[in-house]
């Protein structure tokens, strides 16, 4: 039997997320939730986040994070102009538009 490295030890963990936290995060990500959704999500998220805590069991001291699976470095190209989407095509899917521009709700 081949055993590869990294030793692990099990630990129990739990996590509690309340409705207020769900509402605070949903406000950050701009998703309006109904009261029922917020209360259901609080319950479900507590379970899921409790499970996520399982990774605490792994010793990651002196381990570098992997943001990406490939060891690619920056890809560069010549700064040359190439054809892009015409204005009309870019606006085709916009729910609201005016004078060749997207129409957004007021920001302030």
């Amino acid at each position, binding site marked *: *039997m*081949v*055993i*590869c*490295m*990294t*030793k*692990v030890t099990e630990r129990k963990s739990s996590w509690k*997320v309340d409705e207020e*936290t*769900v509402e605070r*995060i*949903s*406000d*950050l*990500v*701009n*998703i*309006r*939730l*109904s009261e029922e*959704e917020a209360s259901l*999500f609080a319950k*479900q*998220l507590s*379970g*899921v986040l409790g*499970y*996520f805590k*399982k*990774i*605490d069991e*792994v010793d*990651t001291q002196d*381990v*570098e*994070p*992997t*943001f*990406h*699976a*490939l060891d*690619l470095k920056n*890809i560069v*190209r010549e700064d040359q102009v190439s054809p892009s*989407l015409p204005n009309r*095509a*870019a606006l*085709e*899917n*916009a*729910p*609201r538009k005016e004078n060749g521009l*997207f*129409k*957004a*709700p*007021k*920001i*302030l």
Partner: protein
Amino acid sequence: MAELLSALETRNRILSRELTAYEYVSMILEKIKQTDHRIHAYLLVQEKTAIAQAKEIDRKVKRGERVGLLAGLPVAMKDNICTKGVRTTCSSRMLESFIPPYDATVVEKVRGEDGIIIGKTNMDEFAMGTSTETSFFGPTHNPWDLSCVAGGSSGGSAAAVSAGEAALSIGSDTGGSVRCPASFCSVVGLKPTYGLVSRYGLIAYANSLDQIGPIGRNVRDCALLLDTISGHDSKDGTSLQSNGEYLRSLSDSIEGMKVGVLSELFGSGTDPRIERHVRREIQHLVEIGADCEEVSLPILEYALPAYYIIALSEASSNLARYDGIRYGFRAQDEGLDWKSSASKTRGMGFGPEVKRRIILGAYALSAGYYDQYYLKALKVRTLIRKDFREAFKKVDALAGPTMPVPPFKIGERVEDPLAMYMCDIDTVPINLAGICAVSVPCGFIEGLPVGMQIIGDVDNEKKILRIANAYEERAGYTERCPQL
């Protein structure tokens, strides 16, 4: 039944003029009409353009002109892959009426080889799911048992091939979304090495994990489609060179190849029937010349939580683009400011699973939890990559089940997100490590399909496809078709 011939065989018949592309495409369209109201693999069928393209290919064949690798073969495309001028919804209300102004690179490559895009297939909303039940348009049914799920998130693509409603199909795999439905529908599905297939035009879920993959009725068909879609694309910064010729290298012997039976893929959540069955099937590899030994990578116990933390963190950032301004659904927002308009639009446009995942991801990235969840998960990812690399110094490939359970009933897990996430336990490690894996049909348990997963190192598609092909020839499960 010609609609259930392999794609390669069909193509050969079209080239030798025993069958016209027009006849074949008409037959597939007829099959879709007869059966898809029960399966719901498709969200959209491109009947007219498919027939026109088939006639054009027949003209080329008749005139003796060069035709492509996929000459006359109907290919079903997952609905998160952009098709110019053809609705692409991600199975979401958010993109219900989105018509892309450009084609994804895989779409261009399929067409460039005379493949026919026959339609767009159902999926979990934004590819977030393991059963195709989170689709805004309703679930896809398993062709082997209509009361069961087809798997996900590329459920429509796998079910279409399984049911004879397409010759080949394309899915995307972020944590198992090609392999899971391939396993559940008894077809072959490959998750290529990260970067082997261009992601240009694939609507993003989690960029560092997403990869487009081919689905076919057997390993040869799958290799044929990989030959078509792999290769470098300057429009995708993470794209790799491919040395191609996957189909041609299939016939080499697997004599003396070392296959590790990966213990962690038979973990505590595995249905004992799956464990017994898959272990028995792996023995066939020994009979055809492979050396099998048990391999253990204990770190994989942490792959599932690490995967979900990373995938959902990336998703919460990716899906911030849906604000109802440039494209997609926009709620009635008269008199509302930007934040209220976006919040209302996103609250109405996204389904519950997508909202849950965005919120979970944002939570993992939020102040105070970034180090604890996100950064920690990225470090676990480093360890997983490292241990796979070590394992591949000792073995050519790793094997185990694709899914810990057989296809389950529609509705059975939908109320319990964690129970659904647990189904991905055997597939997510591969995406975290950026390596490749194929799911090949390996039999049935009480009439429901089981898949064997064969895992290879970066850029080792040829090896794993060769093993899968040798196994398939020995076992013969891909010859069976569902009774519809």
